[in-house]
């Protein structure tokens, strides 16, 4: 990406370590020359970093303060407690993984894992079917639609499903689904709803990886008398595995963080941790447990951090693989 040399009469010899100063070969951390040396003559060094100050300052205040609030809050006794307000405690955290909160956390994890798994299993064949289709128009349409639907979370999604499969929904009335025991306001209903934005998300995520599968590999496998099944089992799936896992984890994270859809649709019938936090924040907790919401948030952040810790290296790896 840095093919063009810098058109500066650079005193490169004066700086043995820094190289000609192309951005890609920027000084490795640890070398003595921080900002590209050739420019030092023209511009006082350090001018550029000033431009990052507003963002970093904003981030420190806007993100840092809430983060500190969560961390300190999760480990201190709530201000509304009768005794020991403000002192260190781990009671919030232990409470946050017990009783109703434990149920909610597990229910959230279960819902996220299940929907992510189904989303992966359904999304890959769909992406493959679309990619191998002869109609270019269909491909473009499906990919654009995936972009729209992957962003179609939150309230509108909930209302669309209530209109379709809710108690007075069109399909429910058409097929008398309630008589067969169907209810949208349940774990199953929520799963069906979440898939509506998770499957497109998977299609979007996995398409570049599927495009990276070379036709030659399939031909080579076929020349060696591999069946289609064997090709997928021994060639394609191992190659795709990092991307698949990365996609699964991304879906898991999206489902785990989702709040609006569940809040609007199922209310309290399916306990979810995001909903418990919102409840606790609006004051629906026992006296002295005001900091419980912060402890629950910390639980949630830990799960999300785990997800990202798996996802980012995988994403980087598959990006390298496919380029």
């Amino acid at each position, binding site marked *: 990406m840095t093919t063009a040399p810098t*058109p500066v009469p650079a005193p490169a010899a004066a700086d043995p370590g820094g190289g000609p100063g192309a*951005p890609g070969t920027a000084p490795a951390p640890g070398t003595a020359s921080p900002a590209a040396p050739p420019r030092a003559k023209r511009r006082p060094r350090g001018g*550029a970093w000033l431009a*990052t100050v507003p963002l970093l300052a904003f981030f420190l205040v806007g993100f840092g303060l809430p983060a500190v609030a969560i961390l300190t809050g999760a480990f201190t006794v709530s201000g509304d407690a009768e005794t020991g307000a403000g002192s260190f405690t781990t009671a919030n955290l232990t409470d946050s993984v017990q009783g109703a909160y434990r149920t909610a956390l597990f229910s959230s994890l279960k819902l996220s894992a299940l929907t992510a798994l189904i989303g992966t299993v359904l999304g890959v*064949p769909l992406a493959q079917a679309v990619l191998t289709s002869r109609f270019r128009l269909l491909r473009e349409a499906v990919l654009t639609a995936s972009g729209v639907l992957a962003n179609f979370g939150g309230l*509108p999604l909930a209302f669309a499903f209530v209109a379709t499969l809710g108690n007075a*929904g069109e399909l429910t009335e058409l097929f008398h689904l309630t008589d067969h025991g169907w209810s949208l306001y349940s774990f199953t209903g929520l799963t069906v709803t979440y898939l509506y934005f998770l499957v497109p998300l998977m299609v979007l995520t996995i398409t570049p990886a599927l495009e990276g599968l070379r036709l030659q590999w399939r031909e080579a496998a076929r020349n060696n008398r591999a069946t289609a099944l064997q090709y997928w089992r021994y060639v394609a799936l191992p190659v795709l595995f990092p991307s698949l896992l990365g996609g699964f984890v991304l879906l898991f994270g999206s489902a785990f963080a989702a709040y609006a859809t569940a*809040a609007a649709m199922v209310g309290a019938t399916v306990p979810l941790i995001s909903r418990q936090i*919102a409840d606790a924040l609006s004051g629906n907790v026992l006296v002295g447990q005001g900091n419980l919401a912060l402890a629950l948030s910390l639980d949630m952040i830990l799960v999300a951090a785990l997800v990202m810790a798996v996802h980012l290296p995988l994403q980087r790896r598959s990006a390298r693989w496919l380029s």
Partner: protein
Amino acid sequence: MAQLISRLRVWRGAVLLLAGLYFLVPMAASVWFSIDDVDGISFDAYTGLLSAPGFTDSLVLTLELAAVTVVVLLLLLVPAMIAVRIGASRLRPVLEVVCTLPLVVPPVALTAGLIGVLRWGPDHLMDTPFFQTFVFVQQPGFPLVLVVAYVLMALPLAHRALDSGLRAVDVRTLVEAARNCGAGWPRAVLSVVVPNLRGALLSAAFLTLALVLGEFTTASILGYQPFAVWIYSVGNSRGQMSVAVSVLSLLITWVLLLLLAAAGRERRHRTTATS
């Protein structure tokens, strides 16, 4: 061989058909639900929107929030991203961490943290000028605290969009060339680099806009009433109207993304034409 191909075709057709059913039926059902009436078809749910109480207020608030969020986000992010490319490359990892961390904190948790800060502030800063700041960011007319939250949530999206745009441009050479021609720093960045990033800027702005238009979690917990929260309150009393709004919001997202795709395509044509 022919058998294999025909089998593949059947399989592909089945997958596409099932997916088509799953994705199209809820849309069709929603449209039907929103216009279905006891005596035939009626568009009351759509026409009644404008006169519904709170509709214009919440929509205006949301649009204002979206505009301010987009401007603040771009003003913060673009200079920083250009800077790490032309000079301060040591800060690049820092920038990447800053733009990834918000992904680790789900919106609900971020809101909890913000509430923690907002409650802590008045207790400890009652007698200082900072107290006014806390009041100021929470004013109901224009809650700046929401802008802070939205900018943070949009950071990863916007960063990704801008990064892919910057990758396609050799910022360093452009700036050097402009500087050699005697342009000052602001001019080199504003009239040489930024025009090259038009597509990326647009896509970052659109993604942010879509995010703010649909955001419900933070606003509802903090007790403000932008558009998404308004839809929710309407949904409790008038189901048909809320579905109508959902259909509209799907259409709006669609239009936004099509515009985005168009902008991206234009950029790609341009870069292939010039290279």
